[in-house]
């Protein structure tokens, strides 16, 4: 176990060193992502200043929501998105075959060797929004609320990593997954807003089959003491359990697809 952890940590170190070789491109990536997010958040802020709230959420509450969403997403995506988004090419180019002849779980190798420090910009932005918003939303701090904040963030990161894993695993069987990533990000865009503003069918979808509602909507609602449709008093538990359950489901799906892998190129 210690050897495995040391190996995974070494993979992360190699990846970080590789990325730091190209400083200019890293700074440009951070800046570009910062501007991209700032643009989206500004448009939400403009809507809020015009209509005062979105579905009953004020700007400080929305800032906490967006910060939570951005940070949870970044923590999950920094390990998974960039490398698993290219799974189609990895499979078709035969690179996945190379992983299977090494004495390591190929998912673990991909995830840790592709650790992406470009998400530093997301993490700073998410943290900044949370730190700015928390004093303004009147949360009464206690052990359960602190657990909700940190546990909810970890659960959010797990959901992101699980969804990306599930989508990428499709490439092992179909040799295609890129269009599914497009679909995933369409729903991900929806999860940037409180689920309560959508029609009931979308609310239900975001809390069940596409569990992106647990990325920020459910935990932040619990922190703010807002009611969560369909979940009610079960919401705090569901929020913390969603991430680990998503991980179990994603791991099972990955194994299912791996057993059906029939090789890629060559």
């Amino acid at each position, binding site marked *: 176990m210690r050897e495995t952890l*040391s190996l995974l940590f070494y993979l992360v170190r190699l990846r970080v060193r590789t990325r730091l070789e*190209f400083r200019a491109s890293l700074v440009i990536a951070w800046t570009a992502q910062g501007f991209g997010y700032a643009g989206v958040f500004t448009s939400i802020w403009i809507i809020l200043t015009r209509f005062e709230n979105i579905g009953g959420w004020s700007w400080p509450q929305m800032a906490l929501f967006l910060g939570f969403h951005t940070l949870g997403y970044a923590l999950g995506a920094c390990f998974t998105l960039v490398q698993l988004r290219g799974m189609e090419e990895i499979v078709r180019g035969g690179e996945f075959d190379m992983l299977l002849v090494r004495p*390591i779980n190929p998912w673990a190798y991909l995830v840790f060797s592709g650790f992406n420090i470009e998400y530093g910009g997301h993490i700073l932005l998410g943290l900044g929004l949370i730190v700015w918003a928390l004093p303004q939303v009147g949360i009464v701090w206690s052990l359960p609320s602190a657990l909700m904040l940190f546990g909810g963030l970890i659960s959010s990161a797990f959901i992101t990593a699980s969804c990306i894993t599930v989508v990428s695993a499709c490439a092992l069987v179909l040799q295609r997954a890129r269009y599914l990533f497009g679909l995933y990000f369409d729903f991900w865009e929806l999860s940037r807003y409180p689920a309560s503003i959508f029609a009931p069918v979308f609310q239900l979808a975001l809390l069940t089959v596409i569990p992106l509602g647990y990325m920020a909507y459910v935990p932040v609602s619990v922190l703010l003491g807002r009611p969560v449709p369909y979940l009610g008093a079960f919401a705090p538990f569901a929020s913390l359990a969603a991430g680990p359950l998503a991980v179990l489901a994603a791991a099972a799906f990955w194994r299912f697809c791996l057993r059906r892998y029939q090789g890629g190129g060559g």
Partner: protein
Amino acid sequence: MAAIISAEGVGKVFQQRVSQPGILGAIRSFVAPVTRPVHAVADITFSIAAGEAVGYLGPNGAGKSTMIKMLTGILTPSVGEVTVLGRKPQQERVANARDIGVVFGQRTQLWWDLPLSDSFELHRRLYRVPDALFSKNRAALSDMMELTSFIERPVRHLSLGQRMRAEIAMALMHDPKILFLDEPTIGLDVVAKDVVRKFLSRINRERGTTIILTTHDLQDIEEICPRLIMVDEGRLLFDGTLPALRKSFGARRRLTLEFSGDPGEVRLVGARPSGGEGLLREFLLEDDGRSLVQLLAALEASSDVRDVRLHEPSIEEVIRTHYQSKGSAPAPVTGRPAVPA
């Protein structure tokens, strides 16, 4: 010697989409796709003993890579059974991977932007190689493959030949019992090919590492592998030694005699005239085991032979002969029993 690799009636079937012509065909394919089974490997049986060097040979699409993928744990056979070091490779993928080394000529395991030494260190951790063994192997292999001068250079700055030498050295860093090489000399220049061939031959001889090699460069096989397995369209065509291949596939040794004066018609017992003009005469020799001295002794005493050249058919010629006559050949040739002597 006991077999460490065995394939028993192995077959691998892939389902391939059949595309239909025209726009209507494309719509039909979309609505109700039709697939057909493609037998990439069909009923192949062989076994390989520890310390052997075996060339796995065949044209494109013959099923070479599919067989290598089944032996290395990437794919499972559709029928039959593959065992490597007593294990079923895909079921015990990680344990199998620890005992084998794999080099795919067209794919790299090296970290592109980091020095070669970092890839070696990662390999040490991946395969849990003890420090002392790693240091010994790294020094020996770097010396044998002449890696020392560029071991601290980023991989992206290395030539293809340097990278391939590094790939092969790295694949041996954990002392694998078996080394699988898929087209290891592809794209290399003559000098780099020579270095790789000599190195593999030496590793097989000195360390007793079993080598399974697929290649299109037949000189690789001539220099490294005493035994070859030949496949075509997924089926086993031949399993045996190079001389047995030449014999089985009918390729003949060619004898060229050069005379001092016009020899007229020349007859040589056990040889068939095959060309030549002026002072030169060419013959195709029967594969009856006779030596050159015995053949020449059969020449008339008055013959004024100035020079003699004996040309052994290369594997390329042997295989070309086979494929050219494939249309008329009634049955596949097997030159050796499945279990090696």
